[in-house]
């Protein structure tokens, strides 16, 4: 055999080998719905305490969050009193969900038996074939407060009528503002702005009075899909949709969008009441507000705790108002899914743990007396998912043990703005809307109508292609 022919043979064998390996691996990737183990006839009954079962759960607070960590371990010990045969292997993760890592884990099927996610991730989790259908497992015996959980919140965790996750926290977007800056600028901190016109006026006052100290009135994002996400929030506040009800057409190009964007443009370029540099990555607004450099920005209430714990802000200085417009508010939050390959007992044990830790009043995260003793803030306007009797009890408990100035969030809580989930193909639409937001933030001569028309064409192009 000549050397060339020999080389060719080796090469063919190698390529064939790699090809077969690839084919073997790709065939193993094929997942089907038959793998689901959720059709157990006894699914609706709570876990028998005698059952021996082991589950892994992620999002155990890291050692740097000492009180939260201690509470997690204490709660496991207390849970064991009821379920002595359930072993919980906790995975220390911070942040609880790193989007890129989460995606990789779903693709590699390496998530824990009970895994943490953002409520907006349902489609991604289902597409990866990783979530167990827990419809039959969740009822008023396994989750006694089920009837009082806001149906809108549960609806976000449902697909074709089937339930796939349980919420642990949730929020609706609003306006965080710095009460100290408001006071210093001569504004009434108990009367935060509720419309975009008022935001512009207050922002200019702040800039005029405190601009020389490097303090700006308003802050907005202009890249990394954050701008698109915020614009969606603003449009929801005005009662607008981003896409039509049937999800086939873009629905953001209207007078409300033009007005909001023109206001943001004018704040940036006419009033100069915004920083010259737009936010490019998540976290920049919290950092700036924590450092007392901005007066207002669109946000969720969990930012308040983050700013205090991470960026040195003071609870007394921070207030929260409803989303400008106040018609509807973009919601989000966190939940736990149950891995599709879990056994029925693992699913039951997981539900029992999530119910104990996150859905039982006066226990776990709702043990406000303990939170107060451990220095964990009590009184922030979230979780926000209970209604009826559960909400009344939760509010009473929260008020009794409050450690943060609850009155600072009164207008946000009182407004009770109806919540709405993300639009379909949210991230792609955010990329398109990012262009519009960054357009008004980066270009003094931006033509808002042209930006919106062009974005509408692009969004329709995406939607028509079924993307």
């Amino acid at each position, binding site marked *: 055999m000549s050397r060339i022919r020999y080389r060719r043979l080796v090469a063919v064998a190698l390529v064939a080998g790699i090809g077969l390996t*690839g084919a073997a691996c790709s065939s193993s990737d094929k997942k089907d719905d038959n793998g689901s183990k959720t059709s157990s006839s006894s699914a609706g009954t709570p876990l028998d305490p005698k059952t021996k079962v082991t589950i892994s759960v992620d999002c155990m607070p890291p050692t740097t969050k000492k009180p939260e960590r201690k509470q997690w371990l204490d709660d496991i010990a207390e849970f064991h009193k009821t379920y002595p045969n359930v072993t919980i292997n906790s995975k220390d993760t911070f942040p609880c969900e790193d989007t890129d890592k989460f995606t990789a884990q779903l693709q590699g099927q390496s998530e824990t038996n009970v895994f943490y996610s953002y409520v907006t991730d349902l489609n991604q989790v289902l*597409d990866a074939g990783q979530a167990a259908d827990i419809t039959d497992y969740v009822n008023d015996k396994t989750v006694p407060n089920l009837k009082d959980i806001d149906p809108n919140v549960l609806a976000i965790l449902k697909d074709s009528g089937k339930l796939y996750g349980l919420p642990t926290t949730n929020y609706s977007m609003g306006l965080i503002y710095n009460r100290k800056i408001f006071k210093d600028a001569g504004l009434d901190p108990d009367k935060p702005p509720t419309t975009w016109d008022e935001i512009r006026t207050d922002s200019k006052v702040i800039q005029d009075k405190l601009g020389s100290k490097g303090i700006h009135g308003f802050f907005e994002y202009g890249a*990394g899909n954050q701008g698109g996400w915020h614009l969606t929030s603003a449009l929801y506040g005005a009662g607008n949709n981003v896409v039509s009800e049937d999800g086939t057409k873009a629905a953001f190009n209207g007078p409300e969008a033009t007005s909001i964007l023109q206001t943001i443009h004018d704040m940036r370029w006419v009033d100069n009441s915004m920083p010259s540099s737009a936010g*490019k990555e998540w976290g920049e607004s919290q950092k700036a507000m924590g450092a007392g450099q901005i007066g207002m920005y669109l946000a969720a209430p969990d930012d308040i705790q983050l700013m205090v714990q991470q960026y040195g802000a003071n609870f007394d200085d921070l207030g929260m108002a409803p989303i400008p417009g106040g018609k509807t508010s973009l919601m989000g939050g966190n939940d736990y899914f149950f891995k599709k390959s879990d056994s029925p007992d693992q699913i039951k044990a997981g539900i029992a743990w999530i119910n104990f830790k996150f859905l039982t009043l006066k226990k776990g995260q709702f043990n406000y007396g303990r939170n107060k003793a451990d220095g964990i803030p009590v009184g922030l306007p979230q979780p926000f998912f209970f209604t009826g009797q559960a909400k009344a009890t939760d509010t009473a408990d929260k008020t009794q043990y409050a450690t943060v100035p609850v009155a600072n969030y009164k207008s946000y809580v009182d407004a009770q703005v109806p919540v709405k989930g993300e639009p379909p193909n949210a991230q792609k639409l955010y990329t*398109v809307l990012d262009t519009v937001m960054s357009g008004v933030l980066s270009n003094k001569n931006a033509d808002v109508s042209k930006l919106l028309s062009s974005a509408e064409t692009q969004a329709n*192009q995406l939607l028509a292609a079924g*993307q």
Partner: protein
Amino acid sequence: MAATTVPDKTTRRHAGRAAGPKAQGGRGGLSRKLSQNLQAYGFLIGAILCFGFFSWYPMVREFIMSFQQTKRGVTSWVGFHNIKTVYHDPYFWTAWKNTGLFTLYALVIGFAVPFFVAILLNELRHARAYLRVLVYLPVMLPPVAGALLFKYFYNPEYGLFNRILKIFHLPTSQWLDSSHTALISVVIAATWMSMGSATLIYLAALQNIPGELYEAADLDGAGLWSKIWHVTIPQTKLVLSLMLLLQIVATMQEFTNVFLMAGGNGPENSTMTVVYMVYQYGYRYNNFGGAAALGLFLLLVLAGFSGLYARLNRNSD
């Protein structure tokens, strides 16, 4: 002539080895040959496994994935659907345009500057070693730290660059905050961060040029530019062409700097590169098939450049 030449030791050893098995023939010879080269095969298998697992398999897998789609846990073959999807993405051509511009800017700035710095360093008689270290220093800075440093420098309000411009009463810039300047700002930072390596490679090539050539040029009355044009560039042509190819391949895969400095897509998507789009498809849109299809486009373009390089080099040989 070869027949009459006395073979040296190497030739004799090879000749003997080649003749051995033939002389003995049969399976015994083959097994002896195998046992003699056992170590070599061991190394070869190790290398093949490593390359196979970490380099070739992912490429094959990517190729397969670009024709697949996973929906509701079921992976199916979708033919050219992913390719059509990414091709019809409203930002497909934007990403290619930005990638092309990034590569062009990087060639103008990132290719020329290190070469001339290397020429300057080569001309120095004193402190060359110290300056070489100084030039290389930015390479030792972790890319993330370098990117964040430049992001700070570029801040239109309090950044270093605008402060310097103000001192000289020059107009300031929006740098990363304008769709007109964001891409070039990233290129400048990326060039600063990586030019040390390129400069040292050029310097090594320059030091291999025989001094006689410059002396001859001096005698012919050549000036600095003539010497660069007629001696330096022809003598370093191979290194230059290789660096050109490497730079094209590297800059067309730009991701880190646009991601860290401009939030990825940048103002009005002015920094959205093809690789950032791959990232978006994979990790934002959860469409790995689309990401793989885009990667395939990029692979084809880069393979085209590599082929062109090989052809040009063959012609020049």
